[in-house]
C-alpha cells in the first residue's frame, strides 16, 4: 500500500521569500505523484504532476517540484511567494496501472504574510 506524509502542517512565510513544502511517500511499486492546491471553500486544483521523464516539474505560476526516488520525496518549492499563494497544499500519489485511486497527505497550510 502507498502512503504520503507531509511533514509540515503549517508553513508561515513572508511575501517574496522562498518556500519549500515537504512531501515523502512510501510505496513498494512505481507511482505517479501530484501536488494539488485548495483555496478556502473550493475544490482542489491540480498544481503539477510527475509521471515520467525529467524529475523536475514546473507549474505555470512559478512552483516546481522535484521527484527524488532514492529519498522517496516530492518537495514543492517556489523561489518567491505572493500573498495570493496562501492556500492549503496537498501531495498525492497513485500507483501506476490501478484504478487511479489517489492517496493524499494531510495537507500543508501555506500562510504568506505581507
Amino acid at each position: 500500500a502507498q502512503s504520503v506524509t507531509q511533514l509540515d502542517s503549517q508553513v508561515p512565510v513572508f511575501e517574496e521569500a522562498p518556500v519549500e513544502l515537504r512531501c515523502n511517500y512510501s510505496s513498494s511499486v512505481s507511482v505517479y505523484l501530484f501536488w494539488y492546491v485548495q483555496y478556502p471553500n473550493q475544490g482542489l486544483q491540480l498544481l503539477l504532476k510527475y509521471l515520467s521523464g525529467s524529475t523536475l516539474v514546473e507549474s505555470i505560476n512559478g512552483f516546481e517540484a522535484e521527484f527524488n526516488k532514492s529519498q522517496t520525496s516530492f518537495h514543492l518549492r517556489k523561489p518567491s511567494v505572493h500573498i495570493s499563494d496562501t492556500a492549503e497544499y496537498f501531495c498525492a500519489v497513485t500507483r501506476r496501472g490501478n484504478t487511479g485511486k489517489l492517496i493524499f497527505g494531510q495537507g500543508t497550510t501555506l500562510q504568506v504574510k505581507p
Partner: protein
Amino acid sequence: SQTIHQWPATLVQPVGSPLSLECTVEGTSNPNLYWYRQAAGRGLQLLFYSVGIGQISSEVPQNLSASRPQDRQFILSSKKLLLSDSGFYLCAWRQSYEQYFGPGTRLTVT
C-alpha cells in the same frame, strides 16, 4: 473541455435525515468517478469510486452509499445522517493518471 458540477454547494441537515449529493461530468464519456470527504483540518479520504455505470467500490465502511445511474452522474447518499458525516464532500473524475475535482459540497449535520 470537461467540467464537473456538484450540488448543492452547501447543506445543513438534522441528524437522522436522508442525504443525496449529486455530481455530474460534462465533456467526457465513461470517466472513472470518485467521492472524497474532507473533515475539518484533515486530509482527503476516498469514500467510493466507480469505473462504470452501476459499478461502485467502497473504500471505507460507513453510513454512506453511492450510485452511478448514468455514465456521467455519481450520487452520494445516506438514509440517516450522523453528526460525524459533517464535512466537505468532493467529487472527482479521472483523465489519464490525474484527477480533476468539482467545487465541493459543504455538509453540516446538526
